[in-house]
């Protein structure tokens, strides 16, 4: 996979992508329908909704109702996309997504924007560190956490086309630029961004750039790390996890999420059953959200390059 990571921010924001792709996809597919809970302006879809009120429906600030309506629309033959901020797309409407959606065999794509520290200035009430844990517990759910807009552009339509409960956790701002425009992705297959024999770093979304940077710094110290972009958090690419655990003998997960129920848990579940190796984690530890710029919060919650370096070295020492 060709990457062009050089530490720079992506030239496009995810908000731009959502604001252009959702209207285009609605125009192209009459079965697609988009619901929002009064946050259309936050992803650039409000103008389209005003012109096409039958295709883009503002449900008001009622996320559980939105998820239930999406389930009913699915039963009526539509393919619904819903959007709200991450905590409202997970905690607030969880039972409706779980039962009216998953249990009842209805389909919907739920977009939760500003995952983890990306909620930044909106602070703790808007900061989901447990959205992945919740969606992982829905049988058959698919969870995608894109690293950059190239990956988003390729994966989002594929995700929407799938049946069942799908959760897309995505920043609205730009993450680091990772992929060349030609890159393509298969949902459920992790991407090996860098090969190294000493340790495997598995990450996703907002943390991919930081993890690549950490791998480069480890290399300067003579430690070669494999870096995997596990943009599909569920179903986990278990074969890839096992392959690289065997190759490198140590694994560290890096995630913008609570250590409970997220990427660390998924990888640990897989390795405990298949190939136990020393494991470490860079994740939010037993904390609620807080307010501040994302970089400050990354420092505050222990999600920086320095934290990745320290955890990698500590884990290698346990081999």
């Amino acid at each position, binding site marked *: 996979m060709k990457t062009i990571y050089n530490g720079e921010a992506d030239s496009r924001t995810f908000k731009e992508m959502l604001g252009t792709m959702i209207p285009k996809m609605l125009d192209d597919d009459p079965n697609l*329908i988009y619901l929002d809970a009064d946050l259309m302006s936050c992803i650039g879809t409000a103008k389209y909704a005003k012109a096409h009120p*039958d295709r883009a*429906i503002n*449900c*008001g600030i*009622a996320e*559980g*109702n*939105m*998820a*239930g*309506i*999406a*389930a*009913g*629309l*699915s*039963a*009526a*033959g*539509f393919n*619904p996309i819903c959007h709200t901020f991450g905590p409202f797309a997970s905690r607030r409407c969880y*039972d*409706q997504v779980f*039962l*009216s959606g998953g*249990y*009842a*065999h209805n389909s919907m794509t739920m977009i939760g924007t500003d995952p983890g520290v990306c909620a930044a200035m909106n602070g703790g009430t808007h900061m989901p560190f447990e959205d992945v844990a919740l969606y992982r517990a829905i049988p058959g759910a698919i969870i995608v956490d894109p690293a950059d807009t190239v990956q988003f552009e390729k994966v989002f339509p594929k995700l929407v086309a799938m049946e069942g409960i799908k959760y897309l956790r995505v920043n609205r701002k730009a993450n680091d630029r990772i992929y060349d425009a030609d890159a393509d992705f298969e949902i459920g297959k992790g991407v090996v961004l860098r090969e190294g024999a000493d340790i495997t770093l598995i990450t996703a979304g907002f943390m991919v750039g930081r993890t690549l940077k950490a791998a480069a710094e480890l290399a300067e110290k003579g430690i070669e790390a494999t870096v995997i972009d596990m943009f599909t958090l569920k179903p986990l690419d278990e074969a890839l996890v096992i392959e690289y655990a065997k190759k490198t003998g140590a694994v560290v997960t890096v995630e913008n999420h609570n250590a409970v129920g997220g990427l660390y848990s998924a990888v640990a579940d897989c390795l405990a059953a298949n190939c136990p190796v020393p494991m470490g984690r860079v994740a939010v530890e037993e904390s609620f959200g807080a307010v501040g710029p994302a970089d400050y919060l990354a420092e505050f919650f222990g999600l920086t390059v320095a934290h990745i370096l320290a955890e990698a070295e500590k884990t290698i020492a346990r081999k």
Partner: protein
Amino acid sequence: MDNHEKLELRRFAAQIRLALLEEIKARGFGHIGGSLSICDLLAVLYGKVMRYKPDDPKWADRDKLVSSKGHAGPAVYATLALKGFFPMEELKTLNRPGTNLPSHCDKNKTPGIDCTTGSLGQGTSQAVGMALGDKLKGRDSRTFLIVGDGELDEGQCWEAAMFTAGKKITNLTWIVDDNKRQLDGYTVDILPLFDLRAKFEAFGFEAIRVKGNDVEALYDALTKKPGDKPIAIIMDNVKGSGVKGIEETPANHSMTLPAETWDTYIEAVKADLAAIEKEVG
């Protein structure tokens, strides 16, 4: 509606009650109170109002029923069996391992069940989505949503109600089974609902209050053409209605009884049915 039509609906309602009691007797226990209170409504809906095909239960242009009070599934199953969606004998499998008739409605298991419900409140939003979907697909189908009065404790119901009226989803009819009781007792003691008709009117509905066992009034309300506002029918009702012994049992939400007691109730409904048959002539 002439007297004969009225008698036929009353007969169908008694047949539903009878099948329901036999169904629950076969398991020994079940959600009898809230099932009985919608039997007259189901008789009118499936006897005279709704458009459906028992041999093609997923027919897209059918009218849909959402019993958001999913625990009333046994009454809906009895109705569907009587209408030929599946064999009557299947009613005896209620809640047995591997059954197609779970205690709460499941659209993926039971032919003729249009919506999976049971977690109270959730059927309301799904019904909104189903009706909206029909409307946007250009189908002239109607969706009928049955909500329990106790169920209205759930805030989701009011979110869905606001959406129904606010977005003018007039092909969706709300029917509140105002049977005055919920699991732990009387609604007035647990969480008073105040004036439901005024509440629905304030939410933007045309609200109609009818007696829950008046088949003619139910028919008139269910076939009333909505104007700009969606219709909400408040059924003034009795939990356990149509079976005196159960009506008079305060805690009748779910009852576990010996076969002989169920038989007593079955005999009473049989007598009601015979009286109606005699009147039909």
